């Protein structure tokens, strides 16, 4: 596959070997390995409590004091987008984007990033004046203006309504096509994972039980069949029975 050869030619952006994380007696992450190639979009699925957020926080370097072992190779430029937009309420939108930004002309770069997420008109607004979708777009602008090599998304659209989520997903695909960061998207939404990612992982009891290249064909009919196939496979690995699947979907 094209991605695989790309992965072989270049050193991976993320290189995880034997990563283990524990909370008390419970092992949340149980010695997992993972490579993410340059520009690769990986989605990480898992039931609640499967350790997917713990894994993302380990990659983000946010798990202070959580005991564990393993090797964790991540690039210097890592951006994180959380489920809540996490904008500082006392800073205007543009100042939230420039926060901690180094280098030349931070303001111009921030305004450019806001233009990319179609938020130019709201640059001078206070975060509390924005809708949920707008807040999350500002958070995306803040993460992308740093030109990250690795973009970590922790259920970024989980709190949005269905319509806004759809538009945000399309925007995210556009932005990733333009900036080409390696992406790890943590989500519980199987459809979102298949639509956005090239590769889907399922985490269960601290291990990756599925590592699947989505590979949706361009032709509509074949695409639909492949989508249904991947979806069924992922849902059953998440513990949804065939009976449940038939009754609802």
């Amino acid at each position: 596959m094209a991605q695989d050869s790309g992965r072989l030619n270049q050193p991976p952006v993320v290189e995880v070997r034997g990563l283990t994380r524990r909370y008390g007696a419970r092992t949340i992450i149980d010695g997992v390995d993972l490579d993410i190639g340059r520009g690769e979009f990986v989605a990480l699925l898992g039931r609640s409590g499967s350790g997917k957020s713990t894994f993302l926080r380990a990659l983000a370097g946010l798990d202070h004091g959580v005991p564990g072992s393993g090797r964790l190779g991540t690039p210097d430029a890592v951006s994180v987008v959380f489920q809540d937009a996490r904008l500082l309420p006392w800073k205007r939108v543009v100042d939230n984007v420039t926060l901690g930004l180094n280098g030349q002309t931070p303001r111009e770069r921030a305004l450019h990033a806001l233009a990319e997420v179609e938020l130019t008109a709201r640059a001078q607004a206070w975060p509390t004046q924005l809708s949920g979708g707008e807040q999350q777009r500002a958070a995306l602008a803040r993460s992308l203006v740093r030109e990250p090599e690795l973009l970590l998304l922790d259920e970024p659209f989980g709190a949005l309504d269905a319509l806004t989520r759809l538009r945000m997903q399309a925007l995210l695909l556009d932005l990733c096509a333009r900036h080409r960061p390696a992406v790890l998207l943590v989500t519980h939404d199987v459809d979102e994972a298949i639509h956005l990612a090239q590769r889907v992982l399922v985490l269960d009891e601290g291990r990756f039980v599925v590592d699947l290249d989505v590979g949706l064909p361009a032709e509509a009919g074949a695409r639909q069949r492949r989508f249904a196939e991947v979806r069924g496979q992922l849902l059953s690995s998440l513990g949804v029975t065939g009976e449940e699947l038939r009754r609802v979907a």
Partner: protein
Amino acid sequence: MADLSLTGGQGVVDPAWLKLARSQPVGVADKPRRRRKLGPGRPIPYGATLGPVLLLILWSIGSATGYIDDRILSAPWTVATTGWELIQDGRLQENLWTSFQRSFWGLFWGIVAGASLGVIAGLSRIGEYLVDGPIQIKRAIPALALIPLLMLWFGIGEGMKILTIALITFAPIYIQTHDGLRSTDARFIELAETLDLSNGQFLRHVVLPAALPGFLLGLRFGVTYSWLALVVVEQVNATSGLGYMINLARTYGQTEVIILCLAVYAALGLSSDWLVRFITRKALPWRKILAD
């Protein structure tokens, strides 16, 4: 909005259940179903003045009919004319200015001490261990009980008065600032980590703005306390100031002067509280949006 969509819906669709409803007596079916609104009711412009004005009216009526003894409580007009006389001969302004200066400098040092100790205790563990304990002990001791000791140490001059006011006002400012710093949202701390903020940037952009509302709340308490503290220090061995005027008036049985001084205290307290709220609105523009 809810009412509009309800009546509009009746005009457009005509489902079976609606026909059922119409077959009932007309009066019931046509009546728009509007819930009784709970809550204290609509605000009235200048409604807040209603209570004080009512009190003033009762007081005037009581004095005019002789129901209130002049030796117990002077009539409002007596208080007003006495006030005018005291302004004319300059005694009111002079004492007011003295009191104001004491209050101002006491509050000033209270803010300096409260804010800086709050920042020290809020930002470092060691600072908290060293500073917080003694302050909590000091808070447990009533301020009035400290006055004899302060008088022994610092005499009965201005220094002792300002120190007492500062000691009383710094506590709420310290507590609120410390609390504001300590309760900085953990999510924002995490954000600062992911953005690789330096310690200085973290302080300037995250911690201090997060603590500002707390500091301003403490300031609001501090301002009120500074007037309370003033009363305490001025009724002990003072030879000038509003508290001294009250003491003197008590000796001569001049209730109108006492009432006047109380009115001045009230005006000072209310206006300084308004000033702090005004500063708060200006300093936290992002909060105003929420209130709107």
